[in-house]
């Protein structure tokens, strides 16, 4: 292997690793706050990428209708669960958030598709469409069983993953989609070429990590989320609303998923079910980070990307086997070195 191939593989690995890092961060975030191992994270990637690709092609994406449907389901759920305390104000507020907002997004999307304003607006619109699905999903599937065991939450997450993959097939069809790159700039660095797309991925990943760091370290909402993650009962006693923390975590996860999707759809053809395997790699990184550490997760994700790139070059058939087998020694080491015992579940 000469140095050009080495550099190329390294670049490829780092690019994929950056995406895995974003997803790993989202998984850590959701798990820490809600104890849900968020299997459907990958679906947000697919939804985001496909929505963006359709907008770029000048078509109205199905997700714009999907968000209305999710909002209506969450609205119905909210009314049923709070039927004893229904008041005009409550209904009006819920209707605004769960019916009004998605309808507004739908009309906005129609207007944007008609106007064709360009990639940046499409990116923002994609996030606006996909992001609300996160909190609606939390309201419908997870909030009613927020106190259940990790196992029950996980199985529920699998159910959500199956349903969302199926819904993805309905709205996007079985055909794969690809979008033109957001930037066509190229930057030769020695023997290899770094595209604007690559740089964009690095920049956005780094920016999101910094933003998350500031959010959790400097804002009261972020601190409330961390408090929830550390001690749910304690957080409740000081007045932090668990349901709200859950919704924020899921919103962030949806946003991160959508951004990841937008970033990769110009590089690889996305299908309605591609998200799962991409999410899984992020998951590997999140596990190496022990589902608690953000910096470790980001570093692990880059490593996973690089290992995968080299594994696919040397033994492409065994790429997945290698990546997932390498996880076992890592888990063992973490089990031995982690201070937490298995005394209290």
């Amino acid at each position, binding site marked *: 292997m000469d140095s050009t191939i080495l550099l190329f593989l390294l670049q490829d690995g780092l690019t994929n690793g950056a995406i895995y890092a974003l997803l790993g961060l989202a998984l850590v975030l959701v798990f820490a706050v809600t104890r849900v191992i968020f299997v459907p994270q990958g679906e947000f990637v697919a939804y985001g990428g496909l929505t963006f690709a359709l907008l770029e092609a000048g078509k109205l994406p199905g997700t714009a209708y999907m968000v209305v449907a999710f909002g209506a389901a969450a609205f119905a759920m909210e009314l049923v669960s709070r039927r004893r305390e229904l008041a005009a104000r409550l209904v009006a507020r819920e209707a605004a958030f769960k019916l009004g907002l998605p309808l507004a997004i739908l009309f906005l999307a129609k207007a944007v598709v008609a106007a064709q304003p360009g990639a940046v607006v499409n990116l923002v619109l994609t996030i606006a469409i996909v992001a609300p699905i996160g909190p609606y999903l939390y309201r419908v*599937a997870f909030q*009613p*069983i927020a106190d*259940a065991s*990790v*196992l*029950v939450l*996980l*199985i*529920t997450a*699998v*159910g*959500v*993953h*199956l*349903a*969302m*993959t*199926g*819904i993805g*097939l*309905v709205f996007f069809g079985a055909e794969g989609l690809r979008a033109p790159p957001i930037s066509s700039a190229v930057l030769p660095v020695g023997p290899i070429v770094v595209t604007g797309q690559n740089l964009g991925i690095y920049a956005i990943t780094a920016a999101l990590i910094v933003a998350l760091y500031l959010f959790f370290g400097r804002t009261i909402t972020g601190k409330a989320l961390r408090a929830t993650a550390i001690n749910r009962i304690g957080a409740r006693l000081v007045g932090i609303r668990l349901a709200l923390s859950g919704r924020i975590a899921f919103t962030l996860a949806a946003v991160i998923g959508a951004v990841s999707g937008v970033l990769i759809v110009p590089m690889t053809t996305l299908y309605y079910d591609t998200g799962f395997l991409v999410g*899984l790699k992020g998951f*590997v990184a999140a*596990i190496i980070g*022990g*589902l608690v550490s953000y910096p470790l997760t980001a570093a692990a994700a880059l490593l996973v990307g690089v290992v995968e790139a080299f594994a696919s070059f040397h033994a492409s*058939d*065994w790429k*997945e*086997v290698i990546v*997932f*087998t390498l*996880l*076992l020694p890592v*888990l*063992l080491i*973490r*089990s*031995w070195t*982690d201070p*937490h*015992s*298995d*005394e*209290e*579940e």
Partner: protein
Amino acid sequence: MHRLALPLFAAIVALVPLVPGVSVFWITLLDNIGLASLVVMGLVLLTGVGGMTSFGQAAFCGFAAYTTAVMTAKFGWSPWLSLPVALLVTGLAAVVLGLVTVRLSGHFLPLGTIAWGIALYYAFGKLEILGRHDGISGIPPLSLFGISLVDPRAAYYVIWGAVLGAAILTMNLLDSRTGRAIRALRGGRVAAEAFGIEPARMKLAVFVYAALLAGLSGWLYAHVQRAVNPTPFGVHPGIEYLFMAVAGGAGQVWGAIVGAGLVTFLKDALQRIVPALFGTSAQYETIVFGLLLVVILQVAKDGLWPRIAGLFPSPPPAPVDIAAEPLPGRARATAEPLLEVADIRKTFGGLVAVNDVSLRVKRGEIVALIGPNGAGKSTTFNLITGVLPANGGSISVSGERIDGARPQAIAARGVARTFQHVKLLPEMSVLDNVAIGAHLRGEAGFISGLLRLDRAEERRMLGEAARQIARVGLAEHMHKPAGSLALGQQRIVEIARALCLAPDLLLLDEPAAGLRHFEKAALADLLRQLRAEGVAVLLVEHDMGFVMSLTDHVVVLDFGTRIAEGPPAEIKRNPAVLAAYLGAEA
């Protein structure tokens, strides 16, 4: 479970195919339910009882299915000859994976099973000898006495025979010395080890057993389907098995069959009904299945079986022979002092929790360890019982050093303890909880538990437990779940559990906390009785009236350091002790 339930269920299973109108379609569906039930039963033991969540069970089906496929389709072996080989391969794989997996702690364990589950799935699909993604076809059907069992009805009896056999074995196991030890794993490592249970070995045994049940299912699957490919052995099917276990009620053997039945039936119904309603262009059935999964868990978090079982009156508890012959005792060490602690030290980072503390307890003596909160009393207990390693000093029982020994080895020397924070299994009966204390006095293993060869010893073990429960005055609560008792009573249950070890040295951590006046008096009487029998007692207690009236000797700790020791009457007047407790220069 009622005595007649099992024969009744067996009779129903046997008669179903004979009912007119039950078509091959239904029999095939029931075959699939049976195949899934076997895997889920293993999961019930592994996840529901043992507390280890595995997503990789389908991979063990794969090991057995591929083994038998290669041996029968490629090398022409008889399926019956390949069965032991298939189980052996599965078992070996389980030992190797298990050695890694059971050492993973907390959430790392389920994640580890996902990791090797995915890796194995891809490996099955890449190996040339396993036919890569196409798999292996042309596997011969089972045959018995020259009759081919290719008809689903014939296979039905083989499959459900296996399910019933596995159910009986699994229920036997749960109702045995090993079964209690497995259940004790959920109550945490510390309590289990304090009574001589080896968590890692127990977990590995359960892991291999669950894998073998999955292997049996995989072997049957290969010969019923007559072809194998990687798809049914991946992580998605593994998740589905786990869902079956949860939907049925993880922890219940019958829940495994209920869960497998419900999920298999639902999936099949959806695959037929949904496309007819909505058209076949998209996989609407996946959506509906996913949604149903979410709904079922919201409606029944604990699974369906507890709800079904709740419809029937619960059977009376099995009688316990309180007059059963006692379990064999242990050769008693006679050297004095029984417990000698010399200059032990424990630091956590910069904090010195126990600072060169020395104390001794003689046979037939009650010694109290007192001191304000945070004085290092419970840490001292944990050092003596091997839960924490000491940083210095020595601990001896009857003149033999035990510092550095594992908790199990210390328990085997006749050191039993209770815990400051009660460590009982709240859902298990008081009787079973207490019987865990007798673990080291029995020797029935995994296999004798499965095959019910342990009945004589089991009768003596439960008899011993019942005697100790009666001795501490809780006979009327024997069959209640331990968690339903008042906290003070739960502490007394822990004492009964400790007594089952036939201890030479009893360590009691705040035994009188939460007891009412007359209960304290009864506890004091019990401790005096034990003292008269020659048991050495070391207790941590905050109730000074209780301590001063009962003990022979008092050791006072403050900030990890021994500040006084002596007979109770002296301690009461000791100025250093008064200063530590009242914060004044007395």
